[in-house]
């Protein structure tokens, strides 16, 4: 057996035991309240503020570099905070589901797996967006997202056209074969 695998198994077990022991000391969560199922989204106004070009123009017109840098830094902080709030809401929703599902006698492991994949994808998008904001700032990140979206639309339209051209041909050839 692979040595790395063996020591890895031992390390993972040790970490999990520590995590469970730590969690058991915390107060156990009670049954979920129906109001908890409402999605509490972070305010869109907070994000709109990050993308307001007028403020940047005004700061730029002052001719002070430190002021402009301070504004951009604060924008970045706000955008990251907005993303963090969204992630916190996603985590809350997932934990709520787990709290409810643990009692379900008709739980479907495949549905649980799908949900886990959805949650994983959400986290992936979150980390990608956080990375974009950290490296480029909210304004450039938004422009980048728009560019990617328009590129995706172009690709999708092209794919659709190719499909339109190819599909009738394949249908026609398929209908010819049996009658040969």
């Amino acid at each position, binding site marked *: 057996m692979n040595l790395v695998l063996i020591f890895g198994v*031992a390390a993972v077990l040790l970490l999990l035991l520590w995590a*469970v022991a730590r969690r058991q000391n915390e107060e156990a969560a009670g049954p979920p309240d129906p109001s908890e199922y409402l*999605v509490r989204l972070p305010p869109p106004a907070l994000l709109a503020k990050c993308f307001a070009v007028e403020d940047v123009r005004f700061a730029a017109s002052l001719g002070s570099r430190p002021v402009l840098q301070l504004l951009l830094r604060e924008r970045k902080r706000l955008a990251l905070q907005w993303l963090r709030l969204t992630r916190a809401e996603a985590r809350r929703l997932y934990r709520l*589901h787990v709290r409810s599902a643990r*009692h*379900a*006698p*008709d739980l479907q492991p495949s549905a649980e797996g799908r949900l886990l994949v959805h949650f994983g994808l959400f986290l992936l998008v979150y980390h990608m967006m956080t990375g974009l904001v950290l490296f480029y700032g909210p304004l450039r990140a938004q422009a980048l997202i728009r560019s990617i979206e328009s590129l995706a639309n172009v690709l999708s339209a092209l794919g659709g056209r190719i499909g339109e051209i190819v599909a009738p041909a394949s249908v026609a050839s398929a209908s010819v074969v049996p009658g040969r």
Partner: protein
Amino acid sequence: MVSDLLLAAILYRAVRGRFLKVYGCFYLYLAAVLSADLIRAYLAAVRTSAAYALGYWISELALAVVGFGVTWEVYRHAMNAFDGARRMARAVFTALLLTVIVRAVFQLKDGLGALGRTTLELERNLQVLQAVLLIALVSLIAHYQLALSRNLRFLLSGYGLYLVGSIISRTLRLESDQSHAAWWALPSQFEYCATLVIWFAGFWSCTPDPVPELDMERDYEWVANQTMKAFGRLRHHVVQSWRSS
């Protein structure tokens, strides 16, 4: 000697407190360990060294197999009141066991020796398998935030630490040039005694398994759909906000 005394004390507490049956598989494992120790002591005193070595390795292997009962005990008590988590655990265990069986069948093609060249290696591999099962179980306990009784917490901690220590020391022993040296018995004795101390403290008395406060008010399908919809709304909100702001 100290370990045998601790073992006897744990068993005595269970008999006196009348909770031997509550953790049947666990106490069966402890009884097996105590019996193995007694048999080994007898073989060491009366029989030849070859007979002792044979008895030692057979009992070690048997204990590694009986040890699966401890994992079963954790599963039984932790998932007892949680139908959903139990269903999930069953699915995960089935998948894991199937993987292990398929792997073992492929290894058996190369001959029985491929599963473990020596008894020590085979025993270590069985413990790694137990550790993998325990990882799956502990992950589910953590994921579904299941409350554990005091007994179960100590059982899990003790056995988990014993497995980790035992796997590491056996692997190092297998890799070492002096795998037959007498001092290799020291780490395993230490792990064993530490585990028994944890179990002795945890099984002083019997604590009932926690009962969930309320049963699920809605069916699973409703909850799963609500969560899916909520995730959909959240994703839409994130994308739309960045697109249209």
